[in-house]
């Protein structure tokens, strides 16, 4: 057994072995988390099976405009005669994709920057932190608005804008975790035996910083979904024909008093998803014992 392997066992992964099992039992015990998990699973299934499940082409228009829920159109039709259920199902795919991909990008960039800053210290830390502080001075949503204005609208640009706006949150958490772990004995030990900086960060520091990052990531997914909806509402969102929940909801605004279903269903879809993510995030937070992260 190499020295490194010993270190691994000693420092990096004390929780791993029974973690999932304990988390599963926790979720089963926590009704909120269970509800969240069930709802979220349903949406994920809808997203994966989207094209199979949706009864109509989500972009096909016919003259049955603004017709309420019926057997032919279970959730009614929109102002252009498109089937709302089909649009919401396809929207599930896109909205969840926006939520997850946004956070994935933000996480990679933010954690990368944070770990670099925290571990290397010195001028690298200084430069990165000045930038992070700058971004920290603004609400994420305002930053996203501005980035979309620079990049232009559209699905890809919205994802890029929201993820860049989230970078500072992850960077801060990662950096502070690294700073607190850096001084631990096993890191010093690894350094003395000549393990490379990269390897130390990757194998030893990151695994120990995961808990708060996971919590932040979970919460961020819900904020990304809400952020996309708000951007779409301001006319800064995805392109017109892309049926995201946010866009469907924002397009319903001129019909909401005449066609409740147009406003209620996409709103509910957003709310239920965000709600279940929050439920799960809450359970995770209790489980991992992490304090509140930062929001919108």
């Amino acid at each position, binding site marked *: 057994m190499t020295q490194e392997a010993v270190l691994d066992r000693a420092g990096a992964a004390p929780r791993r072995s029974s973690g999932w099992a304990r988390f599963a039992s926790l979720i089963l015990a926590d009704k909120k988390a269970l509800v969240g998990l069930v709802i979220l699973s349903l949406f994920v299934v809808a997203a994966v099976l989207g094209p199979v499940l949706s009864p109509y082409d989500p972009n096909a228009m016919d003259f049955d405009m603004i017709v309420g829920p019926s057997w032919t159109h279970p959730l009614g039709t929109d102002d252009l005669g498109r089937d709302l259920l089909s649009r919401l199902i396809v929207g599930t795919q896109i909205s969840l994709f926006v939520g997850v991909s946004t956070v994935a990008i933000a996480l990679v960039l933010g954690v990368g920057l944070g770990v670099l800053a925290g571990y290397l210290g010195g001028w690298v830390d200084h430069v990165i932190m000045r930038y992070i502080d700058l971004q920290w001075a603004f609400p994420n949503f305002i930053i996203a608005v501005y980035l979309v204005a620079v990049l232009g609208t559209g699905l890809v640009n919205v994802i890029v804008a929201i993820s860049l706006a989230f970078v500072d949150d992850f960077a801060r958490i990662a950096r502070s975790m690294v700073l607190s772990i850096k001084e631990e004995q096993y890191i010093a030990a690894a350094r003395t035996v000549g393990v490379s900086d990269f390897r130390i960060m990757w194998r030893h520091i990151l695994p120990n910083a995961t808990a708060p990052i996971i919590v932040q990531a979970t919460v961020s997914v819900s904020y990304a979904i809400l952020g996309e909806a708000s951007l779409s*509402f301001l006319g800064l969102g995805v392109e017109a024909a892309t049926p995201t929940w946010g866009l469907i909801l924002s397009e319903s605004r001129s019909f909401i008093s005449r066609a409740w279903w147009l406003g209620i269903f996409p709103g509910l879809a957003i709310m239920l998803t965000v709600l279940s993510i929050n439920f799960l995030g809450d359970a995770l937070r209790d489980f991992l014992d992490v304090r509140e992260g930062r929001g919108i």
Partner: protein
Amino acid sequence: MSGYLLRRSIGALIVMWAVATLVFFMLRIVPGDPFAAMMADAGDMEAVEALRRKFGLDQPMYIQYLKWFSNALQGDFGTSIYGARVPVQQLLLEAIPRTLSIAGLSFIIALIIAVPAGLIAATKRNTGWDHGVTLFAFLGLSMPDFWLAILLIVFLAVNISWLPAIGYEPLSAGFWPWLSHLILPAIAVGTGFAAIIARMIRSAMLEVLKTDYMRVARAKGLKQSTLMIYHALPNALIPVVTVIGIAFALLMSGAVVVENVFSIKGLGRLLIQGILNRDYPVVQGAILVVSAIFVFSNLLVDMLYGVIDPRIRYDS
């Protein structure tokens, strides 16, 4: 304390300068020509060029920047590019009270909802009350605020004649006209915030109730209500104060969207419209004010924290 304050203030000014500079250059690489849009109808290229000269846009970027910076230092942010070319200061002075009114009232509404809700949830832990509060908090967090705003208009404003659906009246027009126009936007913005505070108060109260100090107080036989309101709550509010900085971020983001629904030209709307129209001077001015508010409210919160919690000292 004063040394710390000075250092932090200088830091804050540097952040504002950096943001303003970043925005200045980013704005100019954004595609879109405000003058072309303005002239689309008149089609007079000569007038376009005259305007460009007037706004100094024919000059190299660094000269534009130096000019803008030196003017801004003297409190001159230039004029809007559009229409009547109203001075940016005037626009900001009109917009600030609107946004602060919404933010302030949302804050009050949020506290009115959140403090009792948090208290009840903490004292009646794991009862129906607690679950109710928790559910409300989650719903508040999960609802897009523009959606809530539209629902409020559709279901309240149309049916309640004294509740105006849109617009803003300044306080000078009277207290009630001012307040009545703010109620719906403030509810729309404040709900999400109320949810956050209620949750914070609940968990802070639970922490406080566990402390020795509270156990002693309880052992002394103090009444439950006295205990809660005079002993536990003030302690539980400390972490709440820390979120005021974040609160402002939240309220501002909310205001940007909600001002749009209620046709209130506050800072958020000024900013969004400026961005959409490529109205450089307005965006620069608005960003500067918004960042000033952020940076200094964070600073204020830190100071406040020191006042509330005597354990924290800023002297190095």
